[in-house]
């Protein structure tokens, strides 16, 4: 009688030892078949398509910050060669024009950055240039936001505050139709 009692007690527990193995199997399956999402990038809003070329002749020369990238990945900023590393500071100075120089933009609302590349330009170089120009605006927004609201510019800010900042320094980055001198065949 006593023997059956112990047997009953043993039967009452389900052996959970193999549960770990099953879970491990599932874990390894998910580890192998999945990749950690790293969906980050530079968000860009393209202009709508129109068949006419935009007329830029009526813009004042001082308000345009032209950046050209050729097929050899060399930069021409306002008609003189430049390096990518100095682009951000120059763009910031151009947009804000703190010392009121006559050859830089009249004000951040008038400033236009014009980017033109070749079909043979390396994508990496293009993105680096684009990154620097966007970085210039991001830093200016941060500075303005810090001055006004005491916090850096972010998507968590109230919409009205973000709009006020973007009205003060609108991001105007126009991309011209690329030239075709160095396209690889």
């Amino acid at each position, binding site marked *: 009688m006593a023997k059956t009692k112990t047997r009953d007690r043993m039967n009452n527990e389900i052996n959970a030892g193999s549960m*770990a193995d099953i*879970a491990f199997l599932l874990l390894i399956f998910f580890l192998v078949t999945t990749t*950690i*999402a790293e969906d*980050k*990038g530079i968000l*860009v809003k393209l202009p709508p*398509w129109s068949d006419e070329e935009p007329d830029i002749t009526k813009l004042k020369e001082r308000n345009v910050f032209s950046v050209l990238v050729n097929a050899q990945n060399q930069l021409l900023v306002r008609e003189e060669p430049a390096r990518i590393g100095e682009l951000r500071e120059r763009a910031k100075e151009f947009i804000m024009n703190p010392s009121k120089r006559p050859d830089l933009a009249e004000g951040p609302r008038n400033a236009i950055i014009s980017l033109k590349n070749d079909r043979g330009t390396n994508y990496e170089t293009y*993105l680096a240039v684009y990154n620097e120009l966007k970085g210039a605006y991001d830093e200016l927004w941060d500075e303005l936001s810090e001055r006004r609201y005491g916090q850096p510019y972010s998507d968590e800010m109230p919409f009205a505050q973000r709009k006020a900042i973007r009205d003060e320094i609108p991001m105007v980055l126009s991309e011209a139709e690329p030239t075709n001198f160095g*396209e690889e065949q």
Partner: protein
Amino acid sequence: MAKFSKKRGKSSPAISTASLPDIIFMLLFFFMMVTVLRDSDLKLSVNTPEATQLTKLDEKSLVNYIYVGRPTQQYQAVYGTSPRIQLSDKISTVDDIPLFLEQHKVKLPEAKRSRITSSLRVDGDVTMGIVQDVKTKLRKSNQLKINYSAGKRTDELR
């Protein structure tokens, strides 16, 4: 006394492994949350460049992916070595892009369609020609929100 100590010795239990499944399940759920099933296998080699001004794409279902790069070794015999475009899991041309966008769009509710983003996963070594063609096609198809996929750069720019 002897009886007492003997009993103790016998009942000294093995370490309980009952909580092990729970721990493993916790890990399992963590990985299930943070990972996403790879939906298409890449026929192109795509090494996205690095940048600093990054934005995170949040809603997965609103994103479609356009890959641009050179075919990998095993597909070079079929597709050559010059840069190609891949939409979902097949090599395509720029003319297939409008249909691809439309196929993605119809799966989504009307209210969300304006928030669709195209993620351009472009290899750093590709020239801008093919990227420009893709951009032009996207503009013509009125898909204006795009995202140049890039990794985080940590080192200083030269």
